[in-house]
């Protein structure tokens, strides 16, 4: 089978080469991944990151931006590894959402 990401040679039109300044949240996700994949105490590695991105499914893969794909894969990997539970993550996300509303 051909993975959603494996598009070499397909006729898909031109590539959008415009650059954009990275937002703080995007830089944070990159930094988080560097910390998680530090060889000294590897929590997850880049191959697991890629694997998780490739497993998003075509619809999600196309819908999400570059770093949104990263954080989705990171979250799924950490859930699977038991770093946190879905319940803990859900509560934390609700807490952050609430905090954002206060601003």
């Amino acid at each position, binding site marked *: *089978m*051909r*993975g959603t990401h*494996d598009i*070499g*040679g397909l006729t898909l039109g031109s590539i959008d080469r415009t650059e954009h300044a990275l937002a703080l949240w995007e830089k944070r996700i990159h930094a988080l991944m560097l910390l998680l994949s530090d060889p000294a105490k590897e929590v997850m*590695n880049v*191959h*697991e990151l*890629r*694997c998780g991105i*490739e497993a998003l499914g075509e619809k999600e893969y196309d819908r999400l931006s570059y770093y949104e794909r990263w954080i989705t894969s990171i979250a799924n990997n950490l859930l699977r*590894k038991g770093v946190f539970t879905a319940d803990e993550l859900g509560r934390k996300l609700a807490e952050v959402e609430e905090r954002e509303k206060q601003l």
Partner: protein
Amino acid sequence: MTAAFSPGDRVTVRRAYPPGHVRTPYYIRGKTGVVERVLDAFPNPEERAYGRDGLPCQPLYRVRFPQGAVWPDYSGPDADTVDVELYQHWLEPA
């Protein structure tokens, strides 16, 4: 694991289509090229992707393919090539 191929060897990429995390682009499977260089050996990323150690290390090669052999409708110069980095377990002697 020692390198089974040397620069100049003709190799064919295995025509395999497994699901899961693979490091060989779809478009190059089944194509024949020439080993341009042996890069090094690394823990197999196709195993590391599932949390295993990926040992023994797999030799990684840079393999050069004629563009005309890769793309059926290629209209560029005959001398054009494309280099693809491929792990040993994807290669067979041509």
